[in-house]
Each structure stands twice: as C-alpha cells, then as structure tokens.
C-alpha cells in the first residue's frame, strides 16, 4: 500500500489528537476525571453491538450534512444552511411518514425519502438562484433561511402537524411502513449513507458535471471562458447540496427519531461544516470524520450520567479540532510538523459581491 495516500490524513488526525488532549485538560481543570470521560465515551460509543449501532445512527445524518457542505465547497459555495435544509427534510418526511399511512413499505419509504430530498433542496435552490441571478451571497441567505425554517418547523410541530392530545410539540409517530430499521444490527440509514457517499465521490471525481463543478469552484472566470454556465452550475450545486442535507434529515426522522420533534436535529448542519473541514473536502474521508463526531455525540448522555462531565465538552473538543484544521500553521507550530504535511487548504471566499 502506498503510504503517500495517507499523507492528507496526518493533519486532521493530529488536530483531533491535540483537541482531545486539550479537552482532557479542560475536564481535569473542571474537576472531573478525564479517564472517566474517556471510559464514558468508550462505553457509550463502542462497547458492544448496541453502542456501535448508536454511533452509526448518530453518524448517519452527519455523513449527509458533511457531503452537503462538501458539494457546495467544491463549487466555491459555502452552504452554511445545511442545518435548515436538514430540518425541512426531517419534518416533511416525518409528515409524509405519518400522514400517508396504509401504503406498502416499498412505496411509502421511498416516497418519504424523496419528499425529504425535494423539500430539503428547495431552500438551497432559492439560495442558489439568488446567488446566480442577483449576486446575493449564499452565506447570508442560507443563514436567514436557517432561522426562518427553524421557526417554521417549530410552528408546524406545535400547530397544524402536532400530535393530537399531546402537550409536547411534536408530530405523531411515523407508521411502520415508512420506518428504516436495522438489518443485522446495521442501521439501514447508515448503509444508504455509504452508498450516497460513493455516488457523490463518483459524481465529483468521474463525471463531466463534477468536473464543471470543480472548475467553477477553482476559477469561475476560467470556467466561464471555457463555456461552462457558471450560473447553472451554481444553482445545481446548491440544489444538490440541499438535497443531500434534506436526505440526511429524512433518514434521521425515519430511522432514528421516528417522528419530528424540534430540538432533536439541532446542530447537525454545523457539524457538517466541521466534518467537511476535517475531511479536507474529500468525500472519501467523510465517513471516518462523521464516525468520529458521531461517537462523541452518541456518548453525550453517558458523559453526563457516568462521568459527570457536561456534554458540551464535545463541542469544545470539536471547536478546537476545527480551529486547528482551519489554521494549520498553529498546529504545525504546536507539533513542529514539516510544512509539506499541512499545505493545500480550502479557499473559497470571493467577497460579498461578484
């Protein structure tokens, strides 16, 4: 095996190791045992089939969110709205999952997934069109849409789509014909996530569309000169990104939560950004990055109950890891790494205009 292929992994892995170390120090300073925290993570995330299943379930929407961010970044777009698109996918698929009861599972499940994909793509499409036609920066639009969508889903789950006779605002449970269960202990959602990862990787690396997307992302002027419709690629990339996020939300609703409940999907989109950067914008590295974050997320209640550590330590660790990956010079200085291991970073800011 050619070891050079593992070189891009050195920086993220080093960042994760340093971040976990810093996290351990913070836990110790805070008066708890870092060893206890590590044990809690091990117990909750890896210690048996159930724990591993839980980790995979946590990792599943993260894979989709990471892929969504990556597709955008490849085209030079920062889809910070994966969070909102995921929520739309989650709530619309949950609605379809309880409303269209009585269908055969062969029809019902794909229909619910499709609804999540289409409605998740919708807000991203809007952001793409505004970017392409009106030059409005997608970061602003998708952030605004995040808040709008959050409020909209909050209202739907506590109003028109609320479970009758309940005090908690949430939708009724999704019926069996639309649920994604486990096959031999493996969550089907995770299997789907792996398949989609391969598809996205193939699309980006081996198709004309993927080439166009990367060309627009690398240099839009050159892309325009080469006859690529920059606007069309922008809209398509944003829409695809939203579709992936929407699928992530749908899988979360249909496979894990079993209904839509506000707050159950919080922060997934932002973890998507972390994953995209940890994976260095490579779809192949998304699954390990998502598994890492999924394991940490899966252990949050065990951290609280077993080790008496606030679960927000996970966010601290991820924040530090992200910081180190985003600012590679800092890590290089910390670990005295040679320059060749930490170069080639992402650059996609082109200012607000153009």
């Amino acid at each position: 095996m050619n070891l050079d292929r593992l070189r891009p992994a050195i920086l993220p892995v080093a960042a994760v190791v340093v971040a976990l170390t810093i996290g351990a120090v913070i836990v110790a300073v805070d008066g708890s045992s870092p060893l206890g925290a590590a044990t809690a993570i091990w117990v909750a995330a890896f210690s048996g089939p159930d724990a591993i299943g839980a980790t995979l379930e946590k990792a599943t929407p993260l894979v989709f969110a990471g892929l969504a961010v990556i597709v955008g970044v490849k085209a030079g777009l920062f889809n910070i709205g994966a969070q909102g698109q995921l929520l739309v996918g989650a709530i619309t698929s949950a609605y379809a999952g309880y409303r269209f009861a009585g269908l055969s599972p062969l029809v019902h499940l794909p229909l619910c997934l499709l609804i999540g994909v289409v409605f998740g793509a919708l807000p991203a499409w809007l952001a793409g069109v505004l970017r392409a036609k009106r030059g409005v920066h997608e970061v602003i639009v998708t952030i605004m849409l995040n808040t709008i969508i959050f409020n909209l889903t909050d209202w739907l789950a506590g109003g028109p789509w609320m479970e009758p006779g309940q005090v908690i605002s949430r939708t009724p449970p999704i019926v069996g014909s639309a649920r994604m269960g486990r096959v031999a202990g493996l969550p089907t959602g995770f299997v789907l996530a792996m398949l989609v990862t391969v598809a996205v990787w193939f699309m980006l690396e081996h198709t004309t569309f993927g080439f166009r997307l990367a060309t627009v992302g690398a240099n839009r002027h050159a892309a325009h000169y080469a006859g690529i419709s920059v606007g069309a690629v922008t809209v398509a990339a944003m829409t695809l990104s939203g579709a992936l996020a929407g699928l992530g939300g749908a899988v979360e609703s249909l496979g894990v939560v079993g209904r839509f409940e506000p707050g159950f999907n919080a922060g997934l989109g932002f973890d998507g950004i972390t994953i995209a950067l940890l994976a260095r914008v490579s779809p192949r590295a998304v699954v390990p990055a998502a598994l890492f974050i999924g394991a940490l997320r899966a252990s949050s209640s065990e951290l609280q109950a077993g080790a008496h550590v606030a679960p927000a330590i996970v966010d601290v660790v991820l924040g530090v890891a992200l910081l180190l990956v985003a600012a590679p010079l800092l890590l290089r200085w910390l670990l005295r790494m040679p320059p060749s291991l930490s170069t080639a970073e992402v650059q996609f800011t082109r200012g607000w205009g153009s």
Partner: protein
Amino acid sequence: MRPAWVRRRPPPALGVAAALLVAAFLAYAIWGFRAAAVAGFAVRSCTPLALAAMCGILCERTGVINIGIEGQMLLGAFAGFFGAAAFGVVFGVLAAAIIGALGGAFLAVCAVSWRVDQIIAGAVINIVAMGFTTFFYRPGFVIGSLPTWQIPLLADLPLLGPIFFRAQPLAFLTFAVVIGLQVTLFRTTWGLRTTAVGEHPGAADTVGVNVARYRYGNVMLGGALAGLAGAMLSVEITGSFDRAMTAGRGFLALAIVIMGRWRPMLAWTAALLFGLLSGLVNQLNFDQVIDVPPQFVAMVPYGTTIVVLAVFSTRVRPPAAAGRPYP
C-alpha cells in the same frame, strides 16, 4: 463656483432618517402611546444590531469579512455577564470588550498572517464560542444593573426624548460610535486609509500604509464592538445569560452592513427599519388587530433581509478587497 458642501449630494441616510422622523411624529400625533411604544421597541431592539453592524463595517472596510460577529457577540455576552457577576458591571463590560477583541485578533491572525479562508475562520469563531459558552455556563448568578442616564432638557422632548436621550450607557455608546465612525471613516486620515486598505491594499501599501497593521487594528477594534454588543444583550438589557442568547443577531448585523452599503449612519437606519417592522408586528399582535403566531413574528427581520437583498443587491458594491488576503 459653489462651495463644496453645497455641491455634495446629501447622504442617503439623512433622507431615510428624515422620512422616518416625519412618519414617526405623524404616527405619534395619531396613535399616541402606541406609536411611542413601537418606536421605543424599535430603537431598543436595533441598538445591539447597530453596534454589531459597526463591527462588520470596520472589518469589511479594511478588507476582512467577519462572519464570526455572532460568536464574538456570544463571547462578549458570556464574559460580560460572568465578569459582572464576579467583579461588578463595569468590569463585565470591559471583559466583554476584551474578549471580543481577542476573537477579532484570532480572525486577524487567520486572515492576515496565515491567509486562512476568512469565512472558515469566522465560522470557527462561531462554533468555538458556542461550545465554550455552553460548557462553562453555570446557572444561579445574578448581577447588578447598569444605570439609566438622561440628558437634561433633551430627555423631555416628545417621542424622541425617552428614546434617544434617556438610555443606558451602552446604548449611548452605540449612538456615539455610529456618529463617530460616520465622521472618522470619511474625514480622517485613519478612515480614508482604512477604506483604501479595503479597496486596494496594493495601492495603499505603495504609498506607505501598513496594510497588516490596519487590518489587525480594525478587526480587533471591531471585535471589541461586537463583544460590547453582546454585553448589551446580557448585562444591559436582560441582566442574564442564556445559551445561544445572541440568536443570530450577528448574522443579521452582516445583512445590515450590506443594506447600509458599508456606511455607519445608513446601516443604523437599516437596523432601525428592522426594529420598526418587528415592533409594528408585535404591537399589532398585542392589540389583536392581527393574529400571527410568535414564530412568524420572529421571522420578520430574516424574511425582510432576503427580500431586500434580492431586490437591492445588484446595486451595492462591497469593498473591493473584502475577503482577500494581502499580499
């Protein structure tokens, strides 16, 4: 030939502000206390936004996009509250400014020295701020409140008096920063060089302006303003700290920067319009003229932002070098 001040077109903010003022007094004459309530709500809710927008203007005018305003505000709100709980409100406010400036320093190091993508660096600030303020949050603290100051005579003006001349320290600071920035940005050496660094750093460098120093200075100053805007939320307005209490205001501030065309007074006016819109919907709801679920009321500024940007974005021009590392 006419003197320069006659030839210069009046600034756009003046026109909008004048129109707002006339409308406000008309409304006050007709609806009395209701109009005053809406106007008061508008100014109170837009002041933190306006101060945060000043951070955005300072950063982008020097060529650094700061989408970490949200995180800097959150850090400021956190440090302000717990600083005030430990050592008093004055210390809290100072701590907020300092931690905000540290957030700015991180962005400056990334953007200027390390040439990291500025949007990524800003997103990192947001995520890290969220994680740290959640992890280190401890319930059960109370703080003293900031005094309310009033300016003699002016505070007795109808409608305007209670809104602009009877306020708490950070609100007064915001008014001063907005007006001060409007003057200094366009009329002092520092301001003109700042603009030059954001438009064409190469040219500024050629005539001897230290681009890196200007970017570091302004981004840190902006960070301090964002931190103070956060302290305004926690120490001055609510007297408490909540997880994620900034609730996207830092991002709204970015949109206000664009709508205000990177001009302090115009941005303040844009923030005021936001506040008026929310205040109006609130009041109509309260008076049961309309019946809108609270979630839709919360959406108003965000929806407006998208519509306004979609309509006006092709007519605005950001600082040319915003987002680009130099050299």
